[in-house]
């Protein structure tokens, strides 16, 4: 499972990443589970259509039945028959700040999750393993909160304008200079929404006639930005450098599809930490490839900024590389800084260009002042500029928590995906019934987790995803681990066979096909 890669001295420390393969029996049982659910889904649809059973979701009015249908019934099949059954594991209403512990409103359903009613009781102090609270800045008291409250009374809550018109506050300038100093780049620009940072800025950077090489498991914001730009998109296998090199070679040798002209630009889109897999990008190799084939690199550090690296500067510092090698460094303030919004950092010419041409700068409102102050205070705390060592302690606490949690889970025998140093820990569940069962059992034991299944993940790889935080103390982690152990025994989730197989469990020669848009 573990394969230490040194690759000619590119890596300064061992890179341990593991994706243990699904056991065959588990895969067969998962398909049987989905098959049974599908058959029952058809049966229930049949009963609903013939009015044997009451139909609970929205239907067209009687007068409209003869028209062409507004939506296709079948597209909702999964939603009606699978998602509704386990819907109580998602969209849970919380009523306190989602720090290391959170309060949740209890709700029950008397008609199998079609409607919910609140019992009025509040479940207190649930250990929160689902928030992206990597450095624990989601607090309701502390220096960040006081500073933000002061700025709120001074500047107000809203900006009411875009960056280019009247919405450029001195706080924004201060923030951008701070972000540029934090990352070690020449200049940076901050936007109001992390998703919009990707989807609005990639179209400003590439257009028709350019090539985008994006990782298989890139987030929806990167995919949307790539599609909106109009460039040709080619997908390489997840974190697989041979696949990326092959695509680069083909692109340079063959050029554009019909005219064989050279590509105007080649942009490689990768993420720092992939949130569903917990894997870290092989940045040294990507940068080596980028330099060899003279393309550009766009690094989305949404989950890795603040969470990796000895002083929290992200994946570039984690590998000991220079930030000048990455052309566009993008990140969000949502995860480690406890705020909202995103940023892009890079060379001064690039950021000046984005200030003029980015859709966000022209059409979207800028960040709200108290949020900006939260980011400034938390970033200064991480950098140590507020005079305390709280920031450094938090970064170290997160790293310790990560190592401890992953080691204990592996020892218990669960299958965990991802890199040893990533604070995102996916625990494999595989079967559709266990998704719902795991979420509910953990809530009964006062632990809140996030579970995901098909179609957000491949069909046999549904998982529960734990996000560790610097705010979790060792006692909380021990409680959580004890409960996970119990639930694992109850639901028989300990699939791992501790085998030692070579890396590249996902062989490169497995051919896949992608949509071609000619």
């Amino acid at each position, binding site marked *: 499972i573990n394969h230490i890669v040194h690759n000619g001295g590119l890596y300064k420390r061992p890179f341990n990443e593991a994706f243990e393969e699904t056991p065959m029996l588990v895969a067969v049982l998962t398909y049987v589970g989905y098959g049974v659910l599908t058959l029952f889904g058809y049966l229930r649809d049949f009963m609903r259509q013939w009015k044997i059973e009451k139909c609970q979701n929205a239907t067209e009015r009687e007068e409209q039945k003869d028209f062409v249908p507004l939506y296709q019934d*079948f597209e909702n099949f999964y939603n009606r028959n699978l998602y509704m059954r386990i819907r109580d594991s998602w969209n849970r209403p919380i009523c306190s700040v989602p720090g290391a512990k959170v309060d949740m409103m209890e709700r029950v359903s008397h008609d199998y999750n079609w409607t919910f009613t609140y019992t009025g009781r509040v479940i207190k102090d649930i250990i929160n393993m689902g928030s992206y609270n990597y450095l624990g800045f989601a607090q309701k008291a502390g220096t960040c909160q006081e500073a933000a409250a002061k700025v709120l009374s001074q500047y107000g809550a809203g900006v009411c304008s875009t960056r280019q018109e009247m919405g450029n506050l001195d706080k924004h300038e201060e923030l951008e200079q701070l972000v540029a100093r934090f990352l070690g780049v020449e200049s940076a620009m901050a936007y109001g929404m992390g998703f919009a940072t990707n989807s609005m800025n990639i179209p400003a950077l590439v257009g028709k006639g350019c090539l985008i090489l994006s990782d298989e498991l890139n987030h929806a914001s990167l995919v949307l930005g790539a599609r909106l730009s109009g460039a040709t998109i080619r997908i390489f296998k997840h974190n697989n450098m041979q696949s990326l090199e092959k695509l680069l070679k083909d692109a340079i040798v063959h050029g554009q599809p019909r005219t064989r002209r050279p590509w105007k630009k080649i942009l490689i889109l990768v993420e720092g930490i992939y949130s569903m897999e917990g894997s870290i990008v092989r940045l040294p190799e990507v940068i080596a490839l980028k330099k060899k084939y003279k393309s550009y690199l766009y690094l989305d550090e949404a989950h890795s900024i603040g969470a990796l690296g000895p002083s929290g500067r992200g994946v570039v510092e984690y590998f000991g590389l220079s930030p000048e090698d990455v052309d566009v460094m993008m990140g969000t303030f949502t995860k480690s800084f406890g705020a909202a919004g995103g940023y892009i950092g890079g060379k001064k010419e690039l950021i000046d260009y984005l200030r003029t041409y980015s859709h966000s700068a022209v059409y979207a409102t800028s960040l709200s002042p108290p949020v900006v102050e939260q980011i400034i205070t938390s970033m200064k705390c991480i950098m140590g500029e507020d005079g305390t060592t709280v920031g450094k302690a938090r970064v170290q606490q997160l790293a310790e928590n990560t190592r401890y949690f992953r080691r204990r889970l592996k020892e218990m025998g669960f299958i965990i995906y991802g890199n040893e140093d990533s604070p995102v820990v996916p625990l494999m569940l595989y079967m559709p019934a266990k998704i719902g069962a795991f979420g509910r059992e953990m809530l009964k034991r006062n632990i809140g987790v996030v579970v995901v299944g098909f179609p957000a993940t491949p069909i046999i790889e549904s998982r529960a995803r734990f996000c560790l935080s610097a705010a979790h103390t060792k006692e909380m982690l021990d409680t959580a681990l004890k409960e996970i152990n119990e639930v694992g025994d109850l639901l028989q989730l300990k699939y791992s066979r501790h085998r030692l197989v070579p890396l590249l469990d996902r062989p490169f020669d497995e051919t896949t096909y992608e949509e071609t848009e000619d």
Partner: protein
Amino acid sequence: MNVGVAHSEVNPNTRVMNSRGMWLTYGLGVGMLHVVLLSIPFFSVPVAWTLTNVIHNLGMYVFLHAVKGTPFETPDQGKARLLTHWEQLDYGVQFTSSRKFFTISPIILYFLASFYTKYDPTHFILNTTSLLTVLIPKMPQLHGVRIFGINKY
């Protein structure tokens, strides 16, 4: 849960048949069907084999060639809404390994059924027609073709 949240696969339906263990599950399913039919005391061995063949082909026709679209909303604005699952496999690329497997398996079942029914004429007609209903839609020339407008929308 939405499609396309954590990966850039636009239509997961295209990859389902390639996943690990799907072919084995399919084989086990057919085997289980046959064993259940064999254990019913009223059916003789030839009848059980013909029934396995016919029910398998009926199921395959319904799920691969009759049902259209995806059971979830996809981010590509419904490009696959009018396509059957067979047409969606691997984004329409022909002669991939999944397609070859699912073309060959009804043929193998047909050979076995013909052998066990001792090439009796009635059984032969039944088995052959049901094999043809499941083989003809798989031909690449019939990709996207709807005869007489049946199942078009």
